[in-house]
């Protein structure tokens, strides 16, 4: 089975992210592989382990984004490709999907492309379905359970009402949610292998596609309004007294 997993490098979820002088800053917080993408890498490796094959991790970005690819390699991906081109900046999701779809086609013979459900920086959650649409493959988004049997696949997708069980034929695009199961930690051997790996960089010219046009622009990025709030600490002589006072306060807000 030939598998591609698409990953992104993002500021750690514990980072305090602010806008300073019009630029996004995450202080000295580390850049890490997008946490959702770890589930995608885990799912990809599990499929490879069950059915044999190869897992190729891909990302779009600069040299620094190789760290996300190295994390995937250390977890057990077989190889990685960095898609890097000066034209690939400020991309919206459909532009990103065009580049990823082109890369998946260039890799060729791919049976499955795995994504995390969304990136925790831009929070769009659109790229998996858009890539699927461009490839004309089924989009099996928000998958929590994946079972491949020959060229058929059955997934359970997380939706508002519970899980929707869907079958489809490969090739397909999958996006993964957290209840797929914990991603493995990179092994010591994996980390050694990843640190030595040669990661080729593909430019748009090498992929044979023009720079995709983005149509979404971001005229202003802001810090959210601060919550001017002082906490009123409720005290009392007994839990009952405290609870009664707190219930009265909440009811007085007239929002229940």
């Amino acid at each position, binding site marked *: 089975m030939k598998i591609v997993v698409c990953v992104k490098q993002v500021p750690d979820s514990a980072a305090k992210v602010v806008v300073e002088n019009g630029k996004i800053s995450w202080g000295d917080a580390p850049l890490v592989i997008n946490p959702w993408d770890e589930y995608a890498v885990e799912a990809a490796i599990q499929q490879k382990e069950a059915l044999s094959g190869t897992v190729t991790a891909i990302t779009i970005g600069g040299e620094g984004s190789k760290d996300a690819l190295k994390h995937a390699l250390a977890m057990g991906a077989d190889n990685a490709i960095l898609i890097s081109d000066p034209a690939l900046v400020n991309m919206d999701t459909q532009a990103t999907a065009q580049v990823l779809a082109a890369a998946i086609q260039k890799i060729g013979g791919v049976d499955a492309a795995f994504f995390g459900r969304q990136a925790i920086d831009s929070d769009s959650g659109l790229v998996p379905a858009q890539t699927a649409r461009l490839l004309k493959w089924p989009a099996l988004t928000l998958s929590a359970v994946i079972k491949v049997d020959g060229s058929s696949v059955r997934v359970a997708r997380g939706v508002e009402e519970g899980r929707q069980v869907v079958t489809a034929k490969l090739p397909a695009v999958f996006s993964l949610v957290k209840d797929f199961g914990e991603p493995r930690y990179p092994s010591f051997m994996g980390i050694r292998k990843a640190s030595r790996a040669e990661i080729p960089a593909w430019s748009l010219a090498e992929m044979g596609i023009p720079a995709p046009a983005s149509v979404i622009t971001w005229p202003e990025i802001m810090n959210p309004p601060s919550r001017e709030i002082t*906490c009123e600490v409720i005290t009392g002589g007994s*839990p009952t007294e405290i609870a009664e006072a707190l219930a009265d306060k909440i009811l007085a807000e007239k*929002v229940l």
Partner: protein
Amino acid sequence: MNTWVYVDHFKGTALPASWEAIGVGKTLGTVKALVFGQGVEALAKTAFEYGADEVLLADDPALADYRAEAFAATLGKLAADGAPDLLLFPTTTRGRELAAMAAIDLKTGVMVDVTALEAADGKITVTRPIYAGKLLTKETCSSKPLIITLRGRAFPKPAQQAGKSGTLTKVAAATGDFPTKVEGYTTSEGGVSLTDAGVIVSGGRGVSNNPALTPPSGLDEKQAEIWKAQQGFALVKELASVLGAAVGASRAAVDAGYVPYPNQVGQTGKVVSPDVYIACGISGAIQHLAGMRTSKVIVAINKDAEAPIFKLARYGVVGDLFQILPALTAAFKKKLGK
């Protein structure tokens, strides 16, 4: 502006953010609501009552279950023929996915999970949270049609006007050999969905630390911890039940195995915005705060007076949640007459 609104539903019951989207559409001009499914004519009637001027109803066995490809093809064909200026979707799992696909089919972009929208000189600028709400960004789109998904509870739900009607137009479902087949559903335990909830009661790691409890013998350390957490979450659920609230949890509580992942609130869980958010035994890690900071009234119950959650809270109780929670449940039962 000629606005179309996709009405997201499950087996004929609309997700409320669909009606909020009709409300937004009405502020911009006329609204055509899109109702896709099988046996969903009643839903079309409800769409009129929430303000739709016209309903495009695709009622077809092929649309009996939501399937991205079949729904997107139907939508894409209608939009290519009808040329709307703006397509609005609720930011639900289905709404987000259909918007994503429609943008590819119609060669345009998506402004996703929007919480504010300004229209001036025929141009729309939206605001949406990024980094789970740690930042906000304004967005515009240079191509047509505009596609926007609206976050639930960010816009007011219009009043339902019983008996109001409009033009019902029956349209055909796209035909074709769609690659996915729906086998069925396994539904969640029920209860109130987090993203639609007006009130949420959430538990964190602190919920497992009741020193007064002795776990049954024969459990190992981890099992004993889970057992204690389940007793603690029972208190959270009792309060939630009295308030008609949804049950949430911190990532720490989910990672520790106390509650399933769909209950997680935060940057890698659900982003919620209820009227009241009651945080029990949650210290307030930045990734949790990002997921609930826009709640109207935040209440924190925690034994640690220095916990960061108190910085966002309107009301706080520094104390033992195992005593406060049952007392609070009893107080609400009495005051709400339940």
